């Protein structure tokens, strides 16, 4: 069973190289990333040698990896066929050999190997003497084994849920905290480190509570063996081994259950609505009502708005507490608008085959105007209050809360420009998308990179050009009294934005009137 499942995993990995160009590229990039992580982790653990906080930092590294093993399988559940026990449920397999086989399959591949190699950096950074070295090797093996069993136990327990619509929705939303952490590490941590606010000593004492977690036990066992407390180290390793055995037992129990159970939460799920809103607002209200419900129920929409907020906040974070804060605020306002345009530039492809439902009913230019205006209204209803809150929070952090009005004026114009542009691009550069396992949002199908880049470039350039008059208006009215300047700019931004959005709707409707069959063809090719 072990050999069979390991060969299955290797075959699945090899087949990734033979499938689509995108899958091949992802596989190659992932393998390169695993190699870089192995080297980076090994070096970063090795250079801890002699540092006061060495064991604390090692504990943090071990714990971070364990979190990675816990979260990532939930995101890539559909990508690794060996993670889902239901794929093996039809075969006459006994649970224990199956569990051992699945464990071996999990340990196969570039990432588990990268973990082992990277963690072996502790043999240089933390271990002292032959006994320390021996403990380091055993601790690394146990740590990786713990990560694998933990990941298997969690994915098996949640397998039924992760196969269901609700589970997939939940797994998709996990990208938001991960992306927020990534942005924090890329945008904020380097700045704080450069300013001397984060040093190695910042981690001192952090393991007062982490030393009793399984990753902490592994790291401290190496430290104990290297400082003449081999018995304590041995106790820690035995405790870690016992935790792994207990987790393994839990996992086998879950595996037994998962092979004969399905998730039924979606069977009982019902919405509380008593009908679509905007009953008396014609086609515009009908489309806006549907779009608003989608914004609420589609996880992709929540991910999109969440990503925009994180990007806007992180991009302006480096300037907020400097004299150039206003530039950061206005940049955040414009940046948000650009992303609204980029994320909606393929509105029809993203709608997918459901556009066919609308296409058989849309009649003429007037109905298309209402159609685009309805979609835009739903976007504006969310974007305006959301950006108002974000921009005023950023302005308050910058200690100039009233300047939030200036950023909002630019943002209102930008939202109008962004959604107007996205309407036109949705008709001129549509492309089919597909949902892929492991990716929380749909991606363009192979062969449409040109459209994706074209839409992104046009969105960026278009919003920047269309926003220039508004930014100039903010820049050259600094001498005007705030009581006049703020309301005047806000009103100008709103009117200008509304004008641009209306223009976008009219152009898009005129173009779409003759292109409905072609747009439908693209939408029907989407797999979402």
């Amino acid at each position: 069973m072990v050999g069979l499942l390991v060969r299955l995993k290797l075959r699945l990995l090899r087949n990734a190289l033979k499938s689509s160009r995108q899958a091949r590229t992802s596989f190659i990039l992932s393998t390169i990333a695993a190699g870089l992580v192995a080297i980076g982790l090994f070096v970063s653990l090795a250079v801890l040698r002699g540092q006061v906080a060495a064991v604390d930092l090692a504990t943090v590294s071990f714990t971070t990896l364990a979190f990675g093993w816990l979260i990532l399988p939930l995101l890539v559940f559909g990508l690794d066929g060996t993670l889902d026990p239901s794929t093996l449920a039809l075969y006459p397999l006994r649970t224990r050999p199956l569990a051992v086989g699945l464990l071996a399959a999990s340990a196969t591949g570039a990432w588990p190997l990268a973990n082992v190699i990277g963690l072996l950096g502790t043999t240089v950074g933390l271990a002292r003497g032959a006994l320390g070295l021996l403990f380091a090797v055993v601790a690394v093996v146990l740590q990786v084994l713990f990560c694998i069993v933990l990941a298997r136990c969690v994915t098996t327990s949640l397998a039924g849920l992760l196969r269901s619509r609700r589970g997939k929705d939940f797994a998709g939303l996990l990208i938001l905290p991960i992306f927020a952490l990534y942005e924090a590490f890329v945008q904020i941590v380097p700045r704080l480190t450069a300013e001397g606010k984060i040093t190695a000593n910042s981690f001192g004492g952090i393991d007062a509570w982490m030393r009793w977690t399984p990753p902490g036990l592994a790291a401290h066992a190496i430290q104990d063996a290297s400082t003449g407390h081999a018995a304590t180290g041995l106790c820690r390793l035995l405790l870690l081994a016992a935790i792994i055995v207990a987790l393994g037992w839990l996992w086998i129990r879950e595996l037994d259950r998962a092979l004969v159970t399905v998730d039924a939460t979606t069977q009982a799920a019902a919405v509380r609505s008593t009908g679509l809103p905007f009953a008396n607002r014609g086609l515009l209200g009908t489309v806006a009502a549907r779009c608003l419900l989608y914004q609420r129920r589609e996880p992709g929409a929540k991910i999109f708005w969440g990503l925009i907020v994180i990007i806007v906040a992180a991009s302006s974070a480096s300037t907020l507490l400097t004299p150039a804060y206003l530039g950061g605020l206005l940049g955040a306002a414009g940046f948000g608008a650009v992303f609204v345009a980029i994320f909606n530039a393929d509105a029809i492809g993203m709608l997918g085959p459901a556009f066919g439902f609308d296409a058989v009913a849309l009649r003429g230019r007037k109905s298309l105007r209402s159609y685009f205006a309805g979609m835009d209204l739903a976007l504006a209803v969310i974007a305006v209050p959301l950006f108002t809150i974000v921009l005023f929070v950023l302005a308050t952090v910058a200690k100039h809360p009233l300047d939030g009005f200036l950023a909002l004026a630019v943002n209102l114009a930008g939202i109008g420009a962004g959604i107007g542009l996205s309407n036109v691009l949705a008709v001129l550069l549509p492309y089919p998308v597909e949902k892929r396992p492991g990716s929380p949002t749909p991606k363009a199908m192979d062969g449409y990179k040109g459209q994706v880049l074209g839409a992104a470039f046009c969105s960026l350039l278009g919003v920047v050009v269309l926003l220039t008059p508004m930014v100039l208006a903010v820049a050259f009215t600094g001498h005007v009294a705030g009581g006049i300047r703020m309301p005047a700019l806000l009103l100008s931004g709103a009117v200008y934005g509304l004008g641009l959005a209306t223009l976008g709707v009219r152009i898009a409707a005129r173009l779409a009137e003759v292109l409905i069959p072609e747009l439908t063809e693209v939408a029907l090719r989407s797999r979402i």
Partner: protein
Amino acid sequence: MSRVAISVQGLRKSFGDKEAVAGIDLAIGAGSFAGLVGPNGAGKTTSLSMMTGLLRPDLGRIHIDGVDVWADPPAAKALIGVVPAEARLFERLSGEELLEYAGRLRGIPADESRRRAAQLLDVLDLVPDAKRLVADYSTGMRKKVALGSALIHNPSVLFLDEPLEGVDPVSADVIRRLLTRFVGTGSTVLFSSHVMELVEQVCDHVSIIDKGRIVAGGTIDEVRGGKSLHQAFIDLVGSRANDGEGLSWLGSSSG
């Protein structure tokens, strides 16, 4: 023949080198229950997509109740309802919301849309699941709610692509009875299917399509010519004889 509801003349469509529809002529009378049957890849879905204004033909003319589909698409769309093979539905709306949306999209006032939606849900046996998301519906429920969406504006011509594919017998019976009632009022149905028994049972007119051409058409009796429709179909499009001679190991009596 009564007034022609669907008229197709010289319809052609190619995708690159492949000619999917190679010159189709059809005339379906108003009040007919017509079937379009053919093997996989024969051009059924492509033909229906062109007839419903969703795929631009290379050549040919299509009239629905006298309205030229490609000269005046808005007018033609007002007359038809469409149930595609792979139901293209808004998965994150409930069944009830989807039907109301379909009605309002067609210009029916909200109150009337809700009233019709409730009646359709009742007839289609979907009331217990009316508030569940379409994403959580079974194949049969999806087909039924798609049919309701296509009927809510009371079209004069209804196009259905494989309406009973993957549908359980109970749901199939519900759909069949609703369609029969619809045709009984003088409306027209054109549907594609692989299931000859179904076509034989409910249709009064059938066209057999193969390799993008109509190879036989007329009333059921005319097309089957004294045989079963299934046999007539096999005779017309040819069968692929392969009795699995290489599978000597298969079966209880094998070693």
